[in-house]
């Protein structure tokens, strides 16, 4: 009925976003290669140096040494080897290109965990995000819950985001990193298997659980 209005507001949001993103950065090139110059090349050199691939000066000039470093980086990271910082290499190096949009890949478990983090805790402080991921992993390890990440996440009623569709939102970089940090053993929840938002929950079952800690707007409990 009011699809036009919706479309119009979407168009405005899109425009604003585009303006916002272009406003953040100078318009980047489509690719960087032998002979390129500028701040972005310096940034590429800085990253290559920090990760151990480049030993020359950070001078913003894409010369032979930079090209060799890019090739070495591409070999080690499984990217097509051409010595050019195109879309894929730029994304790995975290350097913006005018046409790069591909997403970071990760294993299905990490990705599912990141979707839970994004759906449940995207407005929370970083430790609160890791804690939500840790709760899922603590459930996997607990005898009272299923034994895989997907069974825990999709257990009927366990996470409300599964029902309202937020589980299907694409997680952002922070959520992915939080999922990986939790997989690596960091557990800010202190071993919690439940959490709730006290402002939104009136379940006396939840309120009766022994509290471990509070991070942001979530209370984590045993």
């Amino acid at each position, binding site marked *: 009925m009011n699809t036009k209005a919706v479309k119009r507001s979407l168009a405005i949001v899109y425009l604003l976003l585009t303006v916002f993103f272009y406003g953040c950065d100078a318009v980047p090139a489509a690719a960087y290669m032998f002979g390129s110059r500028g701040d972005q090349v310096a940034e590429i050199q*800085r*990253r290559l140096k*920090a*990760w*151990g*691939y480049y030993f020359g000066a950070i001078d913003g000039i894409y010369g032979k040494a930079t090209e060799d470093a890019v090739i*070495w*980086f591409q070999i*080690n*990271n*499984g990217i097509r080897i051409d010595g050019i910082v195109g879309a894929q290499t730029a994304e*790995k*190096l*975290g350097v913006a290109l005018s046409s790069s949009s591909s997403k*970071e*890949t*990760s*294993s299905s478990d990490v990705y599912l965990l990141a979707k839970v983090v994004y759906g449940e805790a995207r407005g929370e402080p*970083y*430790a609160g995000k890791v804690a939500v991921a840790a709760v899922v992993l603590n459930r996997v*390890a*607990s*005898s*009272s*819950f*299923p*034994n895989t990440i997907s*069974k*825990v996440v*999709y*257990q*009927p*009623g*366990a996470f*409300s985001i*599964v*029902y309202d569709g937020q589980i299907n939102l694409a997680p952002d*970089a*922070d959520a*992915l*990193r939080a999922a*990986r*940090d939790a997989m*690596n*053993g*960091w*557990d*800010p929840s*202190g*071993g*919690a298997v439940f959490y709730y938002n006290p402002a939104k929950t009136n*379940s*006396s*079952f*939840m309120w009766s659980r*022994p*509290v*471990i*800690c*509070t991070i942001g707007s979530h209370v984590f409990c045993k």
Partner: protein
Amino acid sequence: MKRIYKIIAAAAAGALIIGLSCFTIILDAENKTLKNQIAVSYQKSFDELVSNMDSLKVKLLKLEAAGGQNQYSALLMDVWRQAADTESCISSLPVCYQSAGTLTQFMNRTGDYCRYLSGKLANGQPLTSDDLKQISSLADTCGEISNCLNESWKNGYIAEADFNGGAFFTDDAKAGSLDFSNQQFPRLIYDGPFSESVENRQPSGLGGTAVSRDEAQKAACAFTGAAGISYVGDLNGKIACYGFAGEESGNPFSIYVSKQGGKVLWYMSQRATGISALPTKDRYAQLADIAKNFLKSKGYGDTAASYAQFYGGMAVINLAPLQDGVVLYPDLLKVWIDISADTVAGLDANNYLMAHRERTLGAPALTEADVKSKLNANMSVTGVRLALIPLDSGEEKLCYEFSGTLNANQYLVYINANTGTEEDILMIRDTNEGKLIM
């Protein structure tokens, strides 16, 4: 004229009502189809649960009746598999946590226990009369649950199925259609990942005495080198801690110090997310050295870097402390390093605080040459060292750790340095984020 308007208005209203009714009918039909699809999948899980629970009981009774080792091991493996299937059924049903949790735990422990017994059998230890008593009580409980499920099944379980998905955290366990809140479950005595003894394990690495909040704050200041630290709250987990926050060279950090012993549970400084890319080997060696030096300066002694992951601009390096050259995997420490800044961004010492203690390792009874023959003949060995490894049961075993390759795959094989038993096999997988040990 006015009449025409009235007629038009009436016709429009009529059309609107008819249209809306049709729309509602279509919506309702769609809704019903969707509901049926969901109900059918619930019904399937429930039917499976009913029949699985019954055959579990039968298999446990057969175990009681079996006279020979052959049947024991076959039936034990079968119970383990079936318990896992049953656990799957429970986890896909809309049941409140109080019921789902207790049933899931019962299934996990039943399966886990039978796997443990089958492992014992494989090592030449026969089932004891205590084991058979436990099996008998498991069969009884399965029978009780099975009766209860059959009753629900007869009453048409699905009629009560909850579609709004809010049933998991009900205030009243009886609100769900399956109520096991009063069911008695046998206490199983054994050692496995889901056993009570392992789940209730207490930290052994805290030592010392209880510290006050002020003392903990001093420890946090000493650890981070930051002066301005403020208390942010307690952490009442297995390792109870005081939490503090502060800032160091512009990076806000959090640190948790145990109330017992005043040890750091974790320290994490907030850094901007960076790129996820593999560094070069040489660069990794540098990063590992930073981590080792950091741990040494914090009093963890010498450590060996085991494997690492690289994401978000960080290297997360796993390091195991060394005791007389033996790698102590139960005490694994994790260090986060900001690759661009060459600085330590975080430490997780949970494993260390849980497992670390003074250990007398003793000299291994077998030599490397003695146990090498136990390896797969086709494996080409690239390295060997002594390591202490944690087992599922919570025990620790002194093993020779053989690094080897077979068909281009890399493995770590652990052979008990005292008995020659092959205790564990791990596979090393190269991913685009570093090495994964599985």
